[in-house]
């Protein structure tokens, strides 16, 4: 299988400028700037079926085409490296092991959308990836690949690397824009969409790190090549992050459409200690949980959506037969309670209620009606908030209750507290 985004990861000094240049580095950027029009770059990315790999899976080329070119305002590219979805750790590898791949993607994307400034938002805890990217940006400036008249063209591009400060919600694109403007990360109402009113009120494209890292290979080898790597409407490979009860946790680059079973058993070495599989989260904690009878699903945006879950950020968390699913639901609910930004009351209050409710069930102090209450709380958050965080809570926690209901009921029956 041909590796794309992770092709340099195993090489010694994979992050270095020299190493990147050796492998046709920055050739795609030069090709785009000197031989292609912005419209033909967008066309190529559309044809490649590249989709947003941060989690939403929106077709990248289509997103770029929403930028109103006639607008007199400056246009911005914002790269989302605020990787925080539990179970996800792929962008860290790109930033740390191959930062020049990201920078080359930024150059091409900026050219395509007519932007002269890009911000890369790196999550605050990622100190090493941040330093690797800062060094790479400096090297690119010195080489004339960033700055004024990039690569001898007439196109200027500035890149600012912005360090986050530890708030999960800033991975949501409009919260990220607020954060970049120096505010707390409260998501914005859409519409207006960022393509029209984004950073500093200007047209803005926001793409995930992995998405942008795919752009240079597409320009180098062509849309058709990239589309063929994946499956229908899901071009290319994905970096799948596997963790939890598996023998070999790690990042695996595999074609879109690889089955979940193959990822767990062939690539990640199977379930720990030869135990039976009990449950698996297919795309970061917000993706509804799957049961062992569902793992022949193809891992792409459309196939996962068809079975009621989502491909999300590519974070696969495996749970074996020893896992207490009420406990696992409690940990997920605690995450949402701790990370709710507090802007919308259904989410701010509901996330805490849901957590405390599950905690009571887990600890044996539940009241008989707690499970009914819990479903009521969880189902009244999603759809009633500004951003998808509330929906994620509803989908995630709701899936534990619906798929492992008997475990919740048994806990209440066994250890219910006298009223």
């Amino acid at each position, binding site marked *: 299988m041909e590796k794309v985004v992770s092709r340099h990861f195993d090489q010694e000094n994979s992050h270095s400028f020299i190493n990147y240049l050796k492998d046709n580095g920055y050739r795609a950027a030069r090709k785009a700037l000197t031989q292609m029009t912005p419209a033909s770059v967008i066309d190529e990315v559309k044809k490649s079926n590249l989709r947003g790999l941060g989690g939403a899976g929106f077709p990248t080329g289509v997103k770029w085409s929403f930028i109103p070119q006639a607008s007199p305002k400056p246009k911005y590219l914002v790269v989302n490296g605020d990787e925080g979805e539990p179970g996800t750790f792929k962008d860290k590898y790109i930033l740390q092991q191959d930062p020049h791949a990201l920078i080359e993607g930024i150059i091409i994307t900026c050219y395509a959308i007519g932007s002269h400034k890009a911000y890369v938002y790196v999550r605050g805890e990622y100190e090493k990836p941040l330093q690797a990217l800062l060094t790479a940006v400096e090297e690119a400036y010195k080489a004339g690949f960033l700055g004024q008249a990039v690569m001898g063209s007439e196109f200027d591009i500035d890149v600012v690397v912005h360090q986050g400060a530890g708030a999960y919600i800033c991975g949501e694109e409009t919260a990220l824009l607020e954060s970049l403007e120096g505010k707390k990360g409260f998501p914005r109402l859409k519409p207006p969409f960022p393509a029209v009113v984004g950073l500093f009120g200007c047209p803005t494209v926001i793409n995930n790190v992995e998405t942008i890292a795919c752009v240079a290979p597409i320009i180098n080898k062509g849309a058709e090549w990239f589309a063929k790597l994946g499956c229908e409407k899901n071009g290319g490979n994905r970096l799948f992050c596997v*963790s939890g009860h598996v023998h070999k946790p790690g990042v695996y680059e595999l074609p879109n459409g690889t089955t979940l079973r193959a990822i767990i058993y062939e690539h990640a070495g199977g379930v720990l200690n030869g135990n039976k599989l009990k449950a698996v989260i297919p795309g970061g904690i917000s993706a509804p949980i799957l049961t062992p009878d569902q793992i022949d699903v193809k891992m792409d945006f459309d196939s996962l959506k068809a079975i009621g879950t989502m491909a999300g950020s590519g974070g696969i968390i495996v749970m074996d037969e020893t896992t207490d699913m009420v406990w696992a639901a409690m940990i997920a609910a605690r995450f949402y309670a701790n990370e709710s930004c507090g802007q919308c009351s259904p989410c701010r209050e509901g996330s805490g209620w849901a957590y405390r409710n599950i905690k009571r069930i887990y600890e044996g102090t539940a009241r008989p009606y707690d499970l009914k209450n819990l479903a009521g709380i969880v189902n009244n958050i999603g759809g009633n908030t500004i951003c998808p965080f509330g929906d994620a809570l509803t989908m995630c926690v709701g899936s534990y209750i619906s798929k492992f209901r008997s475990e919740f009921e048994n806990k209440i029956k066994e250890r219910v507290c006298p009223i």
Partner: protein
Amino acid sequence: MFSAEYLQELDKITAKYEQKRAALLPVLHYVQHKEGLISQDAEQNIAEYLEISVVHVHEVVSFYHLFHQTKKGQYHFSVCQTTACALRGGEQIIEHLKERLGITPGQTTPDGKFSLSVVECLGACEIAPVMQGNKEYIGCLNKKKIDEIIDKNK
């Protein structure tokens, strides 16, 4: 007010942004890096420097988990409690740390040497259970590893 040298550094940071006020996060990172915390005085100075209100600075400081207004211990444990780490024994690591240090999350030992935070996913689930020791990621934690870190930093 900030010293002239300090201001020079801050000017370099704000110059990268379209609006001076947009540089609040990097300015806070710089101040915290220099002083070990964001004091009330620093909030005031930052507000004056960026020409924004003090309450705006304070709401940002209190919104983001990485900014803090009290001094941490010389060695600060930030241990992950989210799903992937919990599945690999994260809870036992947190319990062991509480026992060894004699403090609960959010506290610092009386001698100021250690402090403990429990945090959500650090984005390093492949080496779960994982923590940050000051800023360094340390993974595949077990009780022995924790004991060694404590002994080394005593």
